[in-house]
Every structure is written in structure tokens, then in C-alpha cells.
């Protein structure tokens, strides 16, 4: 019974980490939009500034990845008692 609970928890945690992975991969490969006709608008400057959508995308991706990591650490903490994995 204990083992079944553990395995259910592991399945839940595996789904969680795969979900974070898929989000990261989708965002990461969205960068190729800069090289496709579909992403033409990214090459344009934002308003009156010299910052283009492409540059803004790069900065946002870096920040988003760090935020994703922070959120992941926050939601995936239930087992981190520090007892394991020595």
C-alpha cells in the first residue's frame, strides 16, 4: 500500500516535470519563428524604440526560463526533506 502511494506520487511528479519540460521546449523552439515568414512581425521595432520583437523575445525567454525554474522548485518540494540522496 505504502509502495503504491509512493508510485502514484512519483507518477504525479513525473507528469509535473514533463509538463515543465514541454513548456520549456515549446518556448525554446518558438525562437525559430524569427527565421520563418510566420515570425515576420518579430523583426519589427516595438513602437518608437529601437528594440525589436526579436530582441525582446530573447530577453523574455531568458527571464521566463528562470521564473519557470523558480516555480518548479516551489511546487516540487514535498519530498525534499534533505534526508535522501546522500
Amino acid at each position, binding site marked *: 500500500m505504502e*509502495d503504491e502511494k*509512493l*508510485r502514484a*506520487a*512519483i507518477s504525479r*511528479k*513525473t507528469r509535473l*516535470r514533463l509538463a*515543465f*519540460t514541454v513548456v*520549456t*521546449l515549446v518556448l*525554446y*523552439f518558438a*525562437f*525559430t519563428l*524569427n*527565421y*520563418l515568414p510566420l515570425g515576420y512581425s*518579430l*523583426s*519589427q*521595432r516595438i513602437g518608437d*524604440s*529601437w*528594440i*525589436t*520583437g*526579436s*530582441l525582446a523575445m*530573447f*530577453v523574455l*525567454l*531568458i*527571464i521566463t*526560463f*528562470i521564473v*519557470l*525554474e*523558480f516555480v*518548479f*522548485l516551489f511546487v516540487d518540494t514535498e*519530498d*525534499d526533506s*534533505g*534526508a*535522501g*540522496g*546522500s
Partner: protein
Amino acid sequence: MRRCILRLLATVFAIMAVNSSAALAAETVDAAKQDQPLNLTAISLFLVFVVVTLWISYWASRRTQSSSDFYNAGGGISGLQNGTAIAGDFMSAASFLGITGLIFIGGFDGLVLALGAFAAWPLMLFLLAKRVRNLGSYTFIDVISLRLERGPIRIVTVTGTIAVVVLYLIAQMVGAGKLIELLFGLPYEAAVVIVTLLVMAYVAFGGMLATTWVQIIKALLLIFGATLAAVLVMNQVGFSIDKLLAGAVENHPRGESILSSGVLFKDPIQIATILVSMMFGTLGLPHILMRLFTVPNMREARKSVFFASLFMGYFYLIIIILGFGTAYLLYGQPEYFGPDGKLIGGNNMAAIHLANAVGGDFLTGFMSAVSFATILAVVAGLTVAGAAAISHDIYAEVICKGKPNPKTELRLTRATTLAIGIIAVILGIMFENENVAFIATMPMVVAASVNFPILFLSLFWPGLTTRGAIAGGIVGLVAAVGLIVVGPQVWVSVLGHDEALFPYNYPALFTLPLALVITWWVSVTDRSARGQIDRRNYDELLVRSEYGTPDKPLKVHA
């Protein structure tokens, strides 16, 4: 020990002094080097770095008494320290000088490699950090061989590891030789020997503890230097990013096109294959994965990946300012360009010239010394990984079946370190005049096509068998090397053919899926008794991989 280090230090000083003097009068160096004056600030700062790091090696040598101390610093590094060391290990001269140089010539396109280098870290946290830390001891190969048949799988993965380490080492040594030749006016061979001697002193005596602290110091110096340069660049434009970009557009020969894609790269498949190679290659780099074992538990392992991401994320954001700063401040300044109209020392020197433009001789010297320190830190990490692959993965685990004589293992580790040093010098000198661009590509592609698929599937797929992993690993290795050879960097640039048989330099978009498919197909058709054991082992390891229960005896079959 103390005498050894002092003697080494004296040798380094002597070589530098002799060769610096020689360089002052050098008539044999090429135009680029003649145009680059000897920077005494750089030499002084670098010598301070050398003295401090050698002292650390001496300190660490007194705490490195066992193989565990050597491979993972006894697991006593904190998450913050390890995160900083990971950043120091990963942010190579290619990151700092190479990406800045790419932005200098191509603007936005240079950021593709920065994103590729950074984006692996979230996946390292989500997929690998906890499970690898919980299952392994010293190397990622421990993790794989816990589940699969120890002998054959170790031999295949050690081959992948050694291939990655040696190729990475060649790229670093040639880069170090060229960089130091230019920055310090030293002969190429002397530069290669100095780098090797220093790294051998760090690693052979201080093991992972000394390597860790060398990487921490280097990371802090690099981040400080890059920040200082970025602040000075922003000071020139009134701290307005808009003015910086406008200035870069005005001065760059390609004008406004540098603010978006298309100057260096146009093909979306090329971009996709670079992104795949960089991301999954990083996840399979043995010297990076090894750092997960230097912390006491999985919580610290996860924290260390997060801290590493913070440092690297900050660094790659700063790179934007430095890169566009080079476009703004260097173009139109004749003192930075040779008679042929090219940047003195090549585009990779853009960051160093920028330091000169905004911070004069002191900042140039500082950034030059940091660049040298960067190479030392990366080569030290590679050397530890290479030594562990031979002495731990082969000697201790395969030859001695997991029961080595600890003293013999430690002696072998140190001997392996020396052997790697000698090999590094030989390869560095052999490849001096070769086009090493393809060698810099290979480690990432090989790691993405051999190490990552086996490691990932061993952690997440119950159906993986030893036969499948071996078949996938061999096919991944052969395909990666084969496609690089018939690609533009070797087939055209090195072998001199008119047109490449395969159009991309980074073929991991094709070789990684191929390795995964072969591994899957051979595993699902594997009806052997060993295959059954491999599948059962997944179940036995699953709880430990997530929760780390060392008190509960494992029932896995070797």
C-alpha cells in the same frame, strides 16, 4: 607538495618572463600579434590569479585523501557554491568572446548560441538534477550502469565521455594557445604548456575541491568584469538601451538589419539543429553532470542548478549590452582594425577591444586575465571528468568490479590526470594550424547523440535494455561524427571540397532522434534474459531516483 607547487610557480613565472621578453621583440609573429602590445596589467592580474589558485590547490591537496574527495570534493560543496562553479565551468571563452564576437559581426543572430547555451539549464533541473543525484556516485555513467549491464554499458558510455572530453580539450587548448599568444605575446607552444601545467597542478593535487574553487573565482571575476564593462558601455549612452541600439545601427555596416534575424543565419532548419545540439549537448556533458555529485543531497543539487541558471541568465543578458556595445564603439575606430580592414586579432577579440574602448588598459588587462582564467577553469573541469572516466568508470567499476584498492585508485586517478595533461599538450600543438571550428562543434553533437539519449531513457523509460542503449549509443556516435565530417566545416573547410554532402554544421537535429529510435527499436525487440533484468531494475530504482532512500537496500541486478 609545497615545494612542488612553488617549483611549478617559479617555472610558470620564468616561462612567462622569458617569453614575454621574446614577444616584445618578436618579428616572427603575424601582423595581428604585432599590433597587440604586451599588456603588463593583464600579466600582473593573471599572475595574481595563478598565485591564488595554486594556493587553493595546496590547501585542497591536504583535504583530498580519497577517491571520493578527488571526484566530488567529498560531496561537501553547498548549492550556491556549486551553482557558481557550474556557471564557471560552463561559461567558457566561447561564450564570452565568441558570442560577443558574433554579435559584433551579425547582431541579433549571435544570440542564437547564447539562448542555446542557456536553455539547457531548466531541463537540467526538471529532468536530470534530482534523479541523477539520487542514483549516481561520481559520474553520470554510475547512474546508467546501476540499471544496465555494468561492463558493456560503461565501455560504450566511457567512449562517449572520452570522445567529448578530448574533443572539448582540443578546442580549449587551441583556443587557449591562440588567445594567450595574442593577449600576452607568448609563443603558442608555451601558452599550451602553461595552461596544461597549471591545470595539472589544480587537478592532480587538489582534485574536484581545487577545481571547484578555481571555477568559483573565475565565475565571479567574469561576471564582475562583464558587469563593469556593461556599466561603462551604458555610461557612454546615458544608460539608455535605445541609444545603444541606435548607435550600433548607425555605426554597423549592416545597419538596422543587425537588430533582427538574417545576417548570419537564414535557414530555420539550421537554427533548429543548432538549438537541439546546444540544449541536449549540454545535458550530456560529463564534466557538467559530474558537478551534481559534489553537493551533499538532492536539495542542494537542485539549488545548484537554479543558482547556475541565475548567474548564466544574468551573464547572457549582459552579453546583449557588450555585443551591441562592440558594434557601437568599435566600428569606425581605425585603431581597432588592421590594414586589411578586419578587427585586430579577429572577431573573437571584439570583447577585449571593447574593454579597451571603455576601460582603457586596466579593463583590457582584467578581461584578458579573466579570459585566460576561463580557459583554465574549463580545462580543469574536463580533466577531472576524463580522469574519473578512466580510473573510476573503467578501473574501479569494470576491472575491479566495483571493489578497487582505494590507494591504487587514487594513484591511478592522479596518473591519469598527468596523462591527460600530456595528451592535451600534444593535441594542442598538433592542431595549432588546423581549423578547430568543427572540433568545437563535435563535443556538443556527440554528447547530444550518445550521452543524453542513454541517460534520459535510463531515467524515464522502463523498456530500456542494455542492448538498446549500446546500439543507440554506437549509432549516435557514428552518425554524429559522420555527418560532421561530410558537413561544411570538415568536407569544405578542412578537406577542400567545393560543396558539403550534408548542409549543416550541428547535425544533432537528425542524430539525436536517430539514436532514440534505434535505442527504442532494439530495446523493444530484445527478448534476452538480460533485457528482462534491465526492465525490472527500472522499477527497483524508481523510488530511490525520486526520493533517495539510501537506507533501503537496492534489489537491482548488476
